[in-house]
């Protein structure tokens, strides 16, 4: 199990029961590390309550969603291959267009 704090914002929380913060235990077998790509699938299957196509597209997030691991863009840590450990914060943000 890996203990993570997940945060959804920019309207994404509406796909997750209108809840912005989740503290979760994600099942995982050592020795390899849990990767963000695996977390995405687990999140979709266990937390998402509606319209999965607004969260994922193929094996990654849909266009317009930014993923941050410990407040840093996942692009800087390997996107789907970013490794997660106990206590990590993962933030999913949908880019906003309103003004």
């Amino acid at each position, binding site marked *: 199990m890996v203990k993570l704090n997940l945060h959804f*914002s920019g*309207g994404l929380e509406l796909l997750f029961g209108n809840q912005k913060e989740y503290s979760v235990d994600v099942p995982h077998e050592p020795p390899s590390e849990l990767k963000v790509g695996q977390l995405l699938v687990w999140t979709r299957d266990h937390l998402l309550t509606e319209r999965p196509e607004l969260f994922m597209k193929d094996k990654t997030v849909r266009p*317009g969603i930014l993923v941050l691991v410990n407040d*840093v863009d996942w*692009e800087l840590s390997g996107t789907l291959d970013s490794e997660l450990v106990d206590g990590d914060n993962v*933030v999913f943000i949908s880019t*906003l*267009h309103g*003004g």
Partner: protein
Amino acid sequence: SGCSEHSLSNHQIKRYSRQLLLPSFGVQAQERLSKASVLVVGAGGLGCPSSLYLAAAGVGHLTIVDHDSVEVSNLHRQISHTEAATGESKALSAAVACMAINSSIQVDAWPTGFKPHNALELVQRHSVVIDASDNSPTRYLLSDACAISKTPLVSGAAIGFDAQLTVYCHGSQGPCYRCIFPEAPMPRACASCSDAGVLGPVPGVIGVLQALEAIKIVTQVGTPLSQTLLLFDGMASSFRSVKIRPKRPTCAACGQQPTITADSLPAYDYTAFTGSTGQQLNG
């Protein structure tokens, strides 16, 4: 003037005295401000506070672009527009409000909107651009024009109780909007304030912060939010700063071999790229 070497008039010294007093700001920053020009695209929930604070601070030249007219449902958040302005051009109404605060600067209203054919010309004439628009195609168009002309872009967005702020196209390492979102989201993932609602102070806070970022950029005072995204949650009144990627070398707009250029931009089909309907493309 006369007591030290600067170009400010006695009236300017008096008007801007509370800024001039700041050791980190002072006469030099005020002179840079008075020589700067800022393009504000959108005179709505973000553009109203943004343009008012820029005018008040003494930005020498302000251009406000918006092709919409003031509606009564705008008044709860678009504080430049009075009830009396209902039905008038938003760009003009916002410009009038700015001039009432500061008649010593130049304010131009551009009520024909921001389009691929005029984007680059408009952007190139300004020191910094404020993205206060309300739709995805305009956000890509603005970013592309700023990437091509290397003009810093202060980008704000808000919906409901949530808002976001960052600076694109800043310096040699700052990313553009396309660096972060190379592929456009599908239209039904893009709620607008008209569809989904918004509480007035939420874009208000971001609009004021956009003015501050623009002031910091043109005066070279402080650290602009380049490669940093500020997230605001109005329900909790909490902010979170996150670190975002630098410029992407393969970016179609700001990368090493861009396909979106001064030549190709005017013909680029932003509505097709974002899957939007034509009417959404506006400032």
